[in-house]
Protein backbone atom coordinates (compact mmCIF):
# COMPACT_ATOMS: atom_id res chain seq x y z
CA UNK A 1 0.00 0.00 0.00
CA UNK A 2 1.49 3.36 -0.93
CA UNK A 3 1.56 6.27 1.45
CA UNK A 4 -1.43 8.06 0.00
CA UNK A 5 -3.68 5.00 0.31
CA UNK A 6 -2.43 4.37 3.82
CA UNK A 7 -3.31 7.92 4.74
CA UNK A 8 -6.79 7.56 3.33
CA UNK A 9 -7.40 4.31 5.22
CA UNK A 10 -6.24 5.84 8.50
CA UNK A 11 -8.18 9.00 7.69
CA UNK A 12 -11.34 6.91 7.39
CA UNK A 13 -10.78 4.56 10.33
CA UNK A 14 -9.65 7.12 12.89
CA UNK A 15 -12.58 9.62 12.87
CA UNK A 16 -15.07 6.77 12.52
CA UNK A 17 -13.55 5.14 15.61
CA UNK A 18 -14.47 8.24 17.63
CA UNK A 19 -17.90 8.45 16.08
CA UNK A 20 -18.44 4.78 16.97
CA UNK A 21 -17.48 5.51 20.60
CA UNK A 22 -19.99 8.36 20.81
CA UNK A 23 -22.76 6.48 18.99
CA UNK A 24 -22.33 3.38 21.15
CA UNK A 25 -22.58 5.54 24.26
CA UNK A 26 -25.76 7.25 23.12
CA UNK A 27 -27.46 4.16 21.71
CA UNK A 28 -26.68 1.81 24.60
CA UNK A 29 -27.77 4.31 27.20
CA UNK A 30 -31.20 4.16 25.56
CA UNK A 31 -31.29 0.45 24.67
CA UNK A 32 -30.64 -2.37 27.09
CA UNK A 33 -28.24 -4.82 25.38
CA UNK A 34 -29.89 -7.78 27.13
CA UNK A 35 -33.27 -6.85 25.65
CA UNK A 36 -31.72 -6.22 22.25
CA UNK A 37 -30.07 -9.65 22.20
CA UNK A 38 -33.26 -11.34 23.38
CA UNK A 39 -35.47 -9.69 20.77
CA UNK A 40 -33.15 -10.85 18.00
CA UNK A 41 -32.86 -14.42 19.24
CA UNK A 42 -29.30 -14.22 20.58
CA UNK A 43 -29.99 -15.02 24.25
CA UNK A 44 -26.59 -16.63 24.65
CA UNK A 45 -24.68 -13.40 23.97
CA UNK A 46 -23.26 -11.68 27.02
CA UNK A 47 -23.81 -7.93 27.47
CA UNK A 48 -20.16 -7.23 26.83
CA UNK A 49 -20.46 -9.16 23.55
CA UNK A 50 -23.49 -7.07 22.50
CA UNK A 51 -21.63 -3.85 23.37
CA UNK A 52 -18.58 -4.97 21.41
CA UNK A 53 -20.55 -6.10 18.37
CA UNK A 54 -22.53 -2.86 18.50
CA UNK A 55 -19.33 -0.86 18.68
CA UNK A 56 -17.83 -2.60 15.64
CA UNK A 57 -21.12 -2.28 13.81
CA UNK A 58 -21.11 1.50 14.35
CA UNK A 59 -17.43 1.69 13.49
CA UNK A 60 -18.13 -0.15 10.25
CA UNK A 61 -21.07 2.08 9.33
CA UNK A 62 -19.16 5.28 10.08
CA UNK A 63 -16.15 4.01 8.13
CA UNK A 64 -18.48 3.16 5.25
CA UNK A 65 -19.75 6.77 5.22
CA UNK A 66 -16.19 8.05 5.25
CA UNK A 67 -15.28 5.69 2.44
CA UNK A 68 -18.09 7.06 0.30
CA UNK A 69 -17.15 10.65 1.11
CA UNK A 70 -13.68 9.91 -0.22
CA UNK A 71 -15.02 8.12 -3.29
CA UNK A 72 -17.31 11.01 -4.16
CA UNK A 73 -14.63 13.61 -3.55
CA UNK A 74 -12.26 11.89 -5.99
CA UNK A 75 -12.11 13.13 -9.53
CA UNK A 76 -13.99 10.90 -11.93
CA UNK A 77 -12.08 9.76 -14.99
CA UNK A 78 -13.12 11.45 -18.19
Amino acid at each position, binding site marked *: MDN*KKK*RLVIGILWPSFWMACITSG*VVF*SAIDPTELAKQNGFESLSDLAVYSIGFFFFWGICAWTGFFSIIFSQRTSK
Partner: protein
Amino acid sequence: MSHEPNDSIESSLFVKRKKLYPREVHGLFATLRIAGVVLLLGMFYFLPWINLNEHQIILFDLPARKFYIFHWVFWPQDFIYLALLLICAALALFLFTALAGRLWCGYACPQTVWTEVFLWIERKVEGTRSQQMKLDALPNSNKRKISLKITKHSIWLTFSLFTGFTFVGFFTPIRELYFSVIQFQLGPWESFWLLFYSTATYGNAGWLREQVCMYMCPYARFQSAMLDANTLLISYDAERGESRGRRKRGTDPKEDNLGDCIDCSLCVQVCPTDIDIRDGLQYECIGCAACIDACDGVMEKMGYEKGLVKYTTENALEGKESKIIRPRIILYSILLISILSGVLYSIETRSFVELDVIRDRNSLYREDFEGMISNTYTIKVLNMDTIDHQFEFKTTGLEGLTVSIKELIDVKAGQVLEIPLQAIIDPINLTEPTTEIYFSVSATDNDKVSTITESRFLGPIEP
Protein backbone atom coordinates in the same frame (compact mmCIF):
# COMPACT_ATOMS: atom_id res chain seq x y z
CA MET B 1 -13.75 24.54 -9.25
CA SER B 2 -10.33 23.16 -9.90
CA HIS B 3 -9.73 19.48 -9.40
CA GLU B 4 -6.01 19.53 -9.89
CA PRO B 5 -4.44 17.08 -7.49
CA ASN B 6 -2.11 18.76 -5.09
CA ASP B 7 0.11 15.80 -4.50
CA SER B 8 3.40 17.66 -4.28
CA ILE B 9 2.17 19.79 -1.37
CA GLU B 10 0.40 16.89 0.30
CA SER B 11 3.34 14.57 0.20
CA SER B 12 5.61 17.27 1.54
CA LEU B 13 3.30 17.39 4.56
CA PHE B 14 3.78 13.68 5.08
CA VAL B 15 7.53 13.26 4.79
CA LYS B 16 8.91 9.96 5.92
CA ARG B 17 9.21 10.19 9.63
CA LYS B 18 12.63 10.36 11.17
CA LYS B 19 12.96 9.01 14.65
CA LEU B 20 13.16 11.68 17.32
CA TYR B 21 15.29 11.48 20.42
CA PRO B 22 13.94 14.15 22.74
CA ARG B 23 16.63 15.08 25.21
CA GLU B 24 15.86 14.81 28.91
CA VAL B 25 15.12 18.15 30.51
CA HIS B 26 14.93 19.46 34.08
CA GLY B 27 13.28 22.58 35.37
CA LEU B 28 10.07 24.10 36.63
CA PHE B 29 7.83 22.94 33.79
CA ALA B 30 9.37 19.47 33.60
CA THR B 31 8.64 19.13 37.33
CA LEU B 32 5.06 20.27 36.77
CA ARG B 33 4.61 17.75 33.97
CA ILE B 34 6.06 14.92 36.05
CA ALA B 35 3.70 15.92 38.86
CA GLY B 36 0.86 15.70 36.33
CA VAL B 37 2.04 12.29 35.16
CA VAL B 38 2.28 10.93 38.71
CA LEU B 39 -1.10 12.35 39.70
CA LEU B 40 -3.03 11.27 36.60
CA LEU B 41 -1.45 7.84 36.18
CA GLY B 42 -1.63 7.31 39.93
CA MET B 43 -5.36 7.94 39.75
CA PHE B 44 -5.70 5.69 36.71
CA TYR B 45 -3.82 2.73 38.20
CA PHE B 46 -4.95 2.97 41.82
CA LEU B 47 -8.56 4.18 41.80
CA PRO B 48 -10.05 0.91 40.50
CA TRP B 49 -8.59 -0.92 43.53
CA ILE B 50 -10.37 1.30 46.04
CA ASN B 51 -13.81 0.27 47.21
CA LEU B 52 -16.54 2.49 48.62
CA ASN B 53 -19.93 1.26 49.88
CA GLU B 54 -19.09 -2.26 48.67
CA HIS B 55 -18.49 -0.95 45.16
CA GLN B 56 -15.39 -0.09 43.24
CA ILE B 57 -15.01 3.68 43.63
CA ILE B 58 -15.11 4.15 39.85
CA LEU B 59 -16.81 1.39 37.91
CA PHE B 60 -18.59 1.65 34.59
CA ASP B 61 -20.66 -1.46 35.05
CA LEU B 62 -21.86 -1.95 31.49
CA PRO B 63 -23.67 -5.29 32.00
CA ALA B 64 -25.75 -3.81 34.82
CA ARG B 65 -25.93 -0.45 32.98
CA LYS B 66 -24.84 1.43 36.06
CA PHE B 67 -21.93 3.82 36.50
CA TYR B 68 -20.43 4.12 39.97
CA ILE B 69 -18.44 7.31 40.41
CA PHE B 70 -17.46 8.04 44.02
CA HIS B 71 -20.67 7.89 46.05
CA TRP B 72 -22.90 8.48 43.03
CA VAL B 73 -24.64 5.87 40.95
CA PHE B 74 -25.63 6.84 37.44
CA TRP B 75 -28.34 5.10 35.45
CA PRO B 76 -29.02 5.22 31.72
CA GLN B 77 -31.69 7.84 32.40
CA ASP B 78 -28.94 10.09 33.83
CA PHE B 79 -27.41 10.42 30.38
CA ILE B 80 -28.12 14.15 30.51
CA TYR B 81 -25.39 14.52 33.15
CA LEU B 82 -22.85 12.98 30.79
CA ALA B 83 -23.89 15.43 28.08
CA LEU B 84 -23.59 18.34 30.54
CA LEU B 85 -20.24 17.07 31.72
CA LEU B 86 -19.00 17.00 28.13
CA ILE B 87 -20.18 20.61 27.71
CA CYS B 88 -18.20 21.51 30.85
CA ALA B 89 -15.14 19.74 29.45
CA ALA B 90 -15.44 21.65 26.17
CA LEU B 91 -15.82 24.96 28.04
CA ALA B 92 -12.81 24.18 30.20
CA LEU B 93 -10.81 23.44 27.05
CA PHE B 94 -11.90 26.80 25.54
CA LEU B 95 -11.00 28.61 28.75
CA PHE B 96 -7.55 27.08 29.17
CA THR B 97 -6.72 27.38 25.47
CA ALA B 98 -7.68 31.06 25.43
CA LEU B 99 -5.68 31.57 28.62
CA ALA B 100 -2.45 29.77 27.80
CA GLY B 101 -2.69 27.73 24.61
CA ARG B 102 -2.19 23.99 24.67
CA LEU B 103 -1.99 23.47 28.43
CA TRP B 104 -4.01 20.28 27.97
CA CYS B 105 -1.56 18.87 25.43
CA GLY B 106 1.54 19.73 27.39
CA TYR B 107 0.53 18.46 30.81
CA ALA B 108 -2.66 16.39 30.91
CA CYS B 109 -3.30 14.62 27.59
CA PRO B 110 -3.03 10.82 27.95
CA GLN B 111 -0.79 10.82 24.88
CA THR B 112 1.70 13.14 26.61
CA VAL B 113 1.40 11.40 29.94
CA TRP B 114 1.99 7.88 28.63
CA THR B 115 4.68 9.01 26.20
CA GLU B 116 6.50 10.57 29.14
CA VAL B 117 6.54 7.18 30.90
CA PHE B 118 7.68 5.37 27.75
CA LEU B 119 10.47 7.91 27.23
CA TRP B 120 11.53 7.43 30.83
CA ILE B 121 11.72 3.66 30.36
CA GLU B 122 13.65 4.17 27.11
CA ARG B 123 16.20 6.39 28.86
CA LYS B 124 16.59 3.93 31.73
CA VAL B 125 17.34 1.12 29.27
CA GLU B 126 19.13 2.78 26.38
CA GLY B 127 20.64 5.78 28.13
CA THR B 128 20.75 9.44 27.18
CA ARG B 129 19.84 11.00 23.86
CA SER B 130 23.33 10.64 22.40
CA GLN B 131 23.68 7.06 23.68
CA GLN B 132 20.36 6.19 22.04
CA MET B 133 21.46 7.74 18.75
CA LYS B 134 24.74 5.83 18.85
CA LEU B 135 22.92 2.60 19.64
CA ASP B 136 20.52 3.04 16.72
CA ALA B 137 23.42 3.71 14.39
CA LEU B 138 24.85 0.28 15.18
CA PRO B 139 24.03 -2.57 12.80
CA ASN B 140 20.98 -4.64 13.71
CA SER B 141 23.17 -7.69 14.29
CA ASN B 142 24.94 -6.03 17.21
CA LYS B 143 24.40 -8.15 20.32
CA ARG B 144 24.24 -5.26 22.75
CA LYS B 145 21.71 -3.50 20.55
CA ILE B 146 19.54 -6.62 20.30
CA SER B 147 19.55 -7.23 24.03
CA LEU B 148 18.80 -3.59 24.89
CA LYS B 149 15.98 -3.41 22.32
CA ILE B 150 14.45 -6.66 23.60
CA THR B 151 14.67 -5.39 27.18
CA LYS B 152 13.05 -2.06 26.28
CA HIS B 153 10.21 -3.58 24.30
CA SER B 154 9.54 -6.22 26.95
CA ILE B 155 9.21 -3.54 29.61
CA TRP B 156 7.05 -1.45 27.30
CA LEU B 157 4.81 -4.42 26.51
CA THR B 158 4.48 -5.43 30.15
CA PHE B 159 3.59 -1.89 31.08
CA SER B 160 1.09 -1.72 28.17
CA LEU B 161 -0.54 -4.98 29.21
CA PHE B 162 -0.89 -3.71 32.77
CA THR B 163 -2.41 -0.51 31.35
CA GLY B 164 -4.86 -2.51 29.23
CA PHE B 165 -5.75 -4.63 32.27
CA THR B 166 -6.41 -1.51 34.36
CA PHE B 167 -8.51 -0.03 31.55
CA VAL B 168 -10.74 -3.10 31.44
CA GLY B 169 -10.81 -2.90 35.27
CA PHE B 170 -12.87 0.27 34.96
CA PHE B 171 -15.61 -1.75 33.26
CA THR B 172 -15.38 -5.14 34.98
CA PRO B 173 -14.70 -5.32 38.74
CA ILE B 174 -10.90 -5.28 38.79
CA ARG B 175 -10.43 -7.82 41.60
CA GLU B 176 -12.52 -10.42 39.77
CA LEU B 177 -10.66 -9.53 36.60
CA TYR B 178 -7.35 -10.04 38.37
CA PHE B 179 -8.35 -13.54 39.45
CA SER B 180 -9.59 -14.42 35.96
CA VAL B 181 -6.27 -13.25 34.53
CA ILE B 182 -4.09 -15.26 36.88
CA GLN B 183 -6.26 -18.35 36.41
CA PHE B 184 -6.27 -17.87 32.61
CA GLN B 185 -10.07 -17.71 32.62
CA LEU B 186 -10.56 -14.36 30.98
CA GLY B 187 -13.63 -14.15 28.74
CA PRO B 188 -13.09 -13.58 25.01
CA TRP B 189 -14.38 -9.99 24.99
CA GLU B 190 -12.45 -8.97 28.08
CA SER B 191 -9.30 -10.43 26.54
CA PHE B 192 -10.01 -8.60 23.32
CA TRP B 193 -10.43 -5.18 24.98
CA LEU B 194 -7.43 -5.77 27.22
CA LEU B 195 -5.25 -6.46 24.17
CA PHE B 196 -6.87 -3.64 22.21
CA TYR B 197 -6.02 -1.02 24.82
CA SER B 198 -2.57 -2.51 25.42
CA THR B 199 -1.78 -2.35 21.70
CA ALA B 200 -3.07 1.22 21.52
CA THR B 201 -0.85 2.23 24.45
CA TYR B 202 2.20 0.46 23.08
CA GLY B 203 1.68 1.82 19.58
CA ASN B 204 0.77 5.38 20.50
CA ALA B 205 3.25 5.99 23.31
CA GLY B 206 6.03 3.74 22.07
CA TRP B 207 6.01 4.22 18.32
CA LEU B 208 3.73 6.98 17.08
CA ARG B 209 4.35 9.59 19.78
CA GLU B 210 4.37 13.11 18.30
CA GLN B 211 2.70 11.81 15.13
CA VAL B 212 -0.50 11.29 17.12
CA CYS B 213 -0.47 15.01 17.93
CA MET B 214 0.51 16.06 14.43
CA TYR B 215 -1.70 13.82 12.29
CA MET B 216 -4.36 12.23 14.46
CA CYS B 217 -5.47 14.81 16.99
CA PRO B 218 -8.45 16.97 16.02
CA TYR B 219 -7.82 19.43 18.85
CA ALA B 220 -4.39 20.23 17.43
CA ARG B 221 -6.06 21.36 14.22
CA PHE B 222 -8.64 23.72 15.64
CA GLN B 223 -7.00 24.99 18.82
CA SER B 224 -5.34 27.88 16.99
CA ALA B 225 -8.81 29.31 16.33
CA MET B 226 -9.19 29.85 20.08
CA LEU B 227 -6.00 31.85 20.48
CA ASP B 228 -5.80 35.62 20.42
CA ALA B 229 -3.14 38.28 20.92
CA ASN B 230 -3.55 38.06 24.69
CA THR B 231 -3.07 34.31 24.99
CA LEU B 232 0.00 33.17 26.90
CA LEU B 233 2.09 31.15 24.47
CA ILE B 234 5.59 29.76 24.52
CA SER B 235 7.61 32.17 22.45
CA TYR B 236 11.16 33.11 21.77
CA ASP B 237 12.05 36.74 22.36
CA ALA B 238 13.70 37.37 19.01
CA GLU B 239 14.45 40.99 19.79
CA ARG B 240 16.53 39.95 22.75
CA GLY B 241 17.98 36.78 21.28
CA GLU B 242 19.04 37.89 17.81
CA SER B 243 21.39 37.82 16.30
CA ARG B 244 22.16 34.42 17.68
CA GLY B 245 25.62 32.98 17.77
CA ARG B 246 28.31 31.22 19.74
CA ARG B 247 30.59 33.29 21.90
CA LYS B 248 33.57 32.95 24.14
CA ARG B 249 33.14 33.24 27.88
CA GLY B 250 34.04 36.62 29.26
CA THR B 251 33.61 38.54 26.02
CA ASP B 252 30.91 41.15 25.65
CA PRO B 253 28.43 39.83 23.09
CA LYS B 254 27.28 43.36 22.30
CA GLU B 255 30.66 44.15 20.84
CA ASP B 256 30.19 41.29 18.36
CA ASN B 257 26.61 42.42 17.69
CA LEU B 258 25.24 39.26 19.30
CA GLY B 259 21.96 38.80 21.13
CA ASP B 260 21.37 36.54 24.13
CA CYS B 261 20.79 33.34 22.13
CA ILE B 262 24.00 31.34 22.09
CA ASP B 263 22.63 29.01 19.41
CA CYS B 264 23.30 25.91 21.53
CA SER B 265 20.24 24.20 19.92
CA LEU B 266 19.22 22.66 23.25
CA CYS B 267 15.68 24.00 22.75
CA VAL B 268 15.45 21.95 19.55
CA GLN B 269 17.00 18.84 21.10
CA VAL B 270 14.48 18.71 23.95
CA CYS B 271 11.47 19.30 21.70
CA PRO B 272 9.26 16.20 21.48
CA THR B 273 7.95 17.35 18.06
CA ASP B 274 11.32 18.48 16.69
CA ILE B 275 10.53 22.11 16.01
CA ASP B 276 12.67 25.17 16.52
CA ILE B 277 10.73 27.52 18.78
CA ARG B 278 12.88 30.38 17.46
CA ASP B 279 11.02 30.12 14.15
CA GLY B 280 7.86 31.39 15.83
CA LEU B 281 4.52 29.80 16.68
CA GLN B 282 4.04 26.48 14.89
CA TYR B 283 1.11 24.12 14.86
CA GLU B 284 3.31 21.19 15.89
CA CYS B 285 4.08 22.87 19.23
CA ILE B 286 2.24 20.98 21.96
CA GLY B 287 3.05 23.57 24.60
CA CYS B 288 5.12 21.25 26.78
CA ALA B 289 7.52 24.08 27.73
CA ALA B 290 10.56 21.77 27.56
CA CYS B 291 12.35 24.48 25.55
CA ILE B 292 11.70 27.01 28.33
CA ASP B 293 13.33 24.74 30.88
CA ALA B 294 16.25 24.00 28.57
CA CYS B 295 16.85 27.65 27.69
CA ASP B 296 16.48 28.87 31.28
CA GLY B 297 19.17 26.40 32.30
CA VAL B 298 21.50 27.78 29.66
CA MET B 299 20.73 31.39 30.53
CA GLU B 300 21.52 30.65 34.17
CA LYS B 301 24.87 29.12 33.24
CA MET B 302 25.70 32.05 31.00
CA GLY B 303 24.72 34.49 33.73
CA TYR B 304 22.00 36.04 31.55
CA GLU B 305 18.49 36.84 32.60
CA LYS B 306 16.09 33.89 32.27
CA GLY B 307 13.10 33.97 29.94
CA LEU B 308 14.59 34.17 26.47
CA VAL B 309 11.99 31.52 25.71
CA LYS B 310 8.96 31.98 27.94
CA TYR B 311 5.19 32.06 28.24
CA THR B 312 4.25 35.44 26.87
CA THR B 313 1.56 37.04 24.72
CA GLU B 314 1.74 38.31 21.18
CA ASN B 315 0.89 41.78 22.48
CA ALA B 316 3.72 41.70 24.99
CA LEU B 317 6.21 40.66 22.32
CA GLU B 318 5.11 43.59 20.19
CA GLY B 319 5.57 45.90 23.13
CA LYS B 320 1.85 46.44 23.61
CA GLU B 321 -0.03 46.01 26.86
CA SER B 322 -1.35 42.48 27.29
CA LYS B 323 -4.56 41.77 29.12
CA ILE B 324 -4.76 38.29 30.59
CA ILE B 325 -8.13 38.83 32.27
CA ARG B 326 -10.34 39.79 29.36
CA PRO B 327 -14.07 39.47 28.54
CA ARG B 328 -13.87 36.01 26.92
CA ILE B 329 -11.92 34.60 29.86
CA ILE B 330 -14.49 36.02 32.28
CA LEU B 331 -17.37 34.75 30.14
CA TYR B 332 -15.95 31.21 29.84
CA SER B 333 -15.24 31.13 33.57
CA ILE B 334 -18.73 32.26 34.52
CA LEU B 335 -20.35 29.77 32.15
CA LEU B 336 -18.10 26.96 33.32
CA ILE B 337 -18.61 27.63 37.02
CA SER B 338 -22.37 28.06 36.72
CA ILE B 339 -22.95 24.93 34.61
CA LEU B 340 -20.61 22.87 36.76
CA SER B 341 -22.19 23.96 40.04
CA GLY B 342 -25.65 23.45 38.51
CA VAL B 343 -24.72 19.90 37.51
CA LEU B 344 -23.23 19.11 40.92
CA TYR B 345 -26.23 20.58 42.75
CA SER B 346 -28.62 18.65 40.56
CA ILE B 347 -26.69 15.38 41.03
CA GLU B 348 -26.56 15.83 44.79
CA THR B 349 -30.25 16.65 45.13
CA ARG B 350 -31.70 14.29 42.55
CA SER B 351 -34.24 11.77 43.74
CA PHE B 352 -33.10 8.18 43.94
CA VAL B 353 -36.46 6.74 43.04
CA GLU B 354 -38.29 6.69 39.77
CA LEU B 355 -41.93 5.78 39.28
CA ASP B 356 -43.30 4.91 35.87
CA VAL B 357 -47.01 4.38 35.39
CA ILE B 358 -48.19 2.71 32.21
CA ARG B 359 -51.90 2.54 31.50
CA ASP B 360 -53.24 -0.71 30.08
CA ARG B 361 -53.53 -0.15 26.36
CA ASN B 362 -56.13 -2.82 25.71
CA SER B 363 -59.13 -1.36 27.50
CA LEU B 364 -60.14 2.15 28.48
CA TYR B 365 -61.98 0.98 31.60
CA ARG B 366 -63.87 -2.04 32.86
CA GLU B 367 -67.23 -2.22 34.61
CA ASP B 368 -67.86 -5.15 36.96
CA PHE B 369 -71.22 -6.77 37.84
CA GLU B 370 -71.65 -4.42 40.82
CA GLY B 371 -71.27 -1.41 38.51
CA MET B 372 -67.83 -0.45 39.86
CA ILE B 373 -65.41 1.07 37.35
CA SER B 374 -61.81 -0.10 37.20
CA ASN B 375 -58.69 0.94 35.27
CA THR B 376 -55.56 -1.19 34.93
CA TYR B 377 -52.01 0.08 35.16
CA THR B 378 -48.50 -1.29 35.37
CA ILE B 379 -46.39 0.39 38.03
CA LYS B 380 -42.61 0.37 37.80
CA VAL B 381 -40.67 1.46 40.87
CA LEU B 382 -36.97 1.92 40.31
CA ASN B 383 -34.76 2.23 43.38
CA MET B 384 -31.63 4.02 42.15
CA ASP B 385 -30.13 4.30 45.62
CA THR B 386 -27.29 2.12 46.89
CA ILE B 387 -29.43 0.87 49.83
CA ASP B 388 -32.76 -1.01 50.04
CA HIS B 389 -35.85 1.06 50.73
CA GLN B 390 -39.42 0.53 51.86
CA PHE B 391 -41.75 2.89 50.00
CA GLU B 392 -45.15 4.20 50.98
CA PHE B 393 -47.38 4.08 47.92
CA LYS B 394 -50.18 6.63 47.61
CA THR B 395 -52.83 7.50 45.05
CA THR B 396 -54.36 10.98 45.11
CA GLY B 397 -56.54 13.20 42.94
CA LEU B 398 -59.76 11.19 42.97
CA GLU B 399 -61.95 10.80 46.04
CA GLY B 400 -63.04 7.23 46.78
CA LEU B 401 -60.45 5.52 44.56
CA THR B 402 -59.08 2.25 45.90
CA VAL B 403 -56.05 0.41 44.55
CA SER B 404 -55.29 -3.30 44.50
CA ILE B 405 -51.76 -3.17 45.93
CA LYS B 406 -50.31 -2.86 49.39
CA GLU B 407 -49.52 0.53 50.82
CA LEU B 408 -45.94 -0.43 51.67
CA ILE B 409 -43.64 -1.89 49.05
CA ASP B 410 -40.05 -3.07 49.41
CA VAL B 411 -37.62 -2.37 46.62
CA LYS B 412 -34.02 -3.51 46.85
CA ALA B 413 -31.10 -1.27 45.91
CA GLY B 414 -30.84 -1.08 42.14
CA GLN B 415 -34.03 -3.10 41.63
CA VAL B 416 -36.85 -2.30 39.22
CA LEU B 417 -40.09 -3.60 40.72
CA GLU B 418 -42.95 -4.10 38.31
CA ILE B 419 -46.46 -4.44 39.78
CA PRO B 420 -49.81 -4.67 38.01
CA LEU B 421 -52.32 -2.34 39.62
CA GLN B 422 -56.05 -2.05 39.46
CA ALA B 423 -57.74 1.16 40.56
CA ILE B 424 -61.45 0.82 41.37
CA ILE B 425 -64.07 3.48 41.99
CA ASP B 426 -67.81 3.84 42.40
CA PRO B 427 -69.01 5.81 39.32
CA ILE B 428 -70.96 8.28 41.50
CA ASN B 429 -67.56 9.75 42.41
CA LEU B 430 -66.74 10.42 38.75
CA THR B 431 -67.61 13.78 37.22
CA GLU B 432 -65.46 13.79 34.09
CA PRO B 433 -64.68 11.17 31.41
CA THR B 434 -60.98 11.66 32.22
CA THR B 435 -59.65 12.53 35.64
CA GLU B 436 -56.05 13.27 36.45
CA ILE B 437 -54.74 11.13 39.26
CA TYR B 438 -51.36 11.05 40.97
CA PHE B 439 -49.32 8.11 42.13
CA SER B 440 -46.52 8.74 44.58
CA VAL B 441 -43.87 6.74 46.36
CA SER B 442 -41.91 7.95 49.35
CA ALA B 443 -39.27 6.01 51.27
CA THR B 444 -40.32 5.44 54.86
CA ASP B 445 -36.77 5.99 56.16
CA ASN B 446 -35.95 9.06 54.07
CA ASP B 447 -38.66 11.35 52.74
CA LYS B 448 -36.21 12.93 50.29
CA VAL B 449 -36.30 9.68 48.32
CA SER B 450 -39.71 10.27 46.83
CA THR B 451 -41.40 11.07 43.57
CA ILE B 452 -44.82 11.68 42.11
CA THR B 453 -46.17 10.66 38.69
CA GLU B 454 -49.28 11.81 36.91
CA SER B 455 -51.69 9.50 35.11
CA ARG B 456 -55.34 9.41 34.03
CA PHE B 457 -58.41 7.54 35.17
CA LEU B 458 -61.10 6.95 32.53
CA GLY B 459 -64.77 6.29 33.19
CA PRO B 460 -68.14 5.99 31.38
CA ILE B 461 -69.16 9.64 31.79
CA GLU B 462 -70.59 11.55 28.85
CA PRO B 463 -68.78 14.84 28.40
